């Protein structure tokens, strides 16, 4: 079990790496710059991230993705039922994505650097989402033939897809988000009539 001060140092390095990426982009950021920003030696950086810049880039992306979903979870946690939890989740996620200036800038200028690493991180995101969805589905009546694990996995995949690319849906509008949830996300999974909300 890592000592608390090791975790704190790791956090400090990741925060510095984030700031460097924000200031210089993923390509131009350096370990030296991160060390300076964090007020640590290069040796300390390499001790925590022996893979150097490549490992740091992957770690800071994972870190920020985790923080993104933490912020999201906090915002929607008090939703009264499954349908509104999903609806609020889509709305909040889209808003937070659009408002995420570093993400938007990287997508514009360094998509080739960012997207493959996001793809590496996505299975973990999906697994966490899937577990949360499976937990919430346990309180719902499922349609005949629906397997809770399969349904949770499908919903996790679709949620990630819609958040990343809304397509035809205007997910800045609550009524649209609700319509998506009620016409495309829930109908294949939960029983009509006993659907909460």
């Amino acid at each position, binding site marked *: 079990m890592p000592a608390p001060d090791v975790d704190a140092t790791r956090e400090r390095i990741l925060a510095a790496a984030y700031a460097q990426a924000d200031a210089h982009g993923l390509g131009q950021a350096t370990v030296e710059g991160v060390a300076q920003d964090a007020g640590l030696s290069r040796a300390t950086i390499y001790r925590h991230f022996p893979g150097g810049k490549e490992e740091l880039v992957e770690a800071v992306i994972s870190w920020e993705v985790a923080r993104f979903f933490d912020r999201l979870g906090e915002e929607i946690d008090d939703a009264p039922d499954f349908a509104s939890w999903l609806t609020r989740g889509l709305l909040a996620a889209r808003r937070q994505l659009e408002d995420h200036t570093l993400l938007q800038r990287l997508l514009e200028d360094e*998509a*080739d650097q960012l*997207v493959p690493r996001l793809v590496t991180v996505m299975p973990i995101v999906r697994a966490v989402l899937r577990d949360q969805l499976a937990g919430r589905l346990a309180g719902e009546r499922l349609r005949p033939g*629906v397997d809770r694990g399969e349904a949770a996995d499908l919903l996790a995949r679709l949620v990630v*897809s819609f958040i990343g*690319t809304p397509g035809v849906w205007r997910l800045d509008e609550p009524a649209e988000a609700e319509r998506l949830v009620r*016409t495309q996300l829930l*109908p294949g999974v939960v029983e009509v009539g006993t659907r909460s909300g």
Partner: protein
Amino acid sequence: MGASTGLAERYLGADDVERRLVDAALRCVERWGLAKTSIDDIARQAGVSRATVYRLFPGGKDRLVATVLQYELGRLFHEADSEARQATDLEDLVCVGVGIAMRTLTGNAALAYLVIHEPEAILPHFAFHRLAPLLATVAELSRPHLGRFLPDDAVRPAAELLARVVLTYSFDPAPELDPTDDDSIRRFVRTYLLPALTTTQERT
């Protein structure tokens, strides 16, 4: 949307040279990947001049991936067309479409090469805002087929949902949707997809 659909529909009206160019690009990428494929390589493989390649793909290599993706979408729909027209109901149609689309995606050698060896060249085209024009093209190409069984304003959301399902289960396979198993496809479509295509809600 018009421009991207135009590219996909160009497959239908495409002359031999254009088709040969896209095939040549795919053959080169299968073998060497995108980074090591030059415009000259494509020209040589297709048996045309550099000038011809640049005339038909004015963005050069930069636009090549986006252009070929749209073009291949057109090819996919063209090849699925007659089987799709034989579908007698929505369930049949969706089973046909999902099956052919997934088998095409998972069987494409150039795509497989890029995903494994040059993810930075291909994955950005399937993420965030760059995915949107592909979804829109799928919707328009699906219209003659889905339009047989769904009201007009339901076609685009339905097509986009199916495209998302095809993409995610092709890139990250799961046993419950096995494109080589018709029973698996039918069960998945019937259980999870049909209700999501046919449920309507009045717009407020």
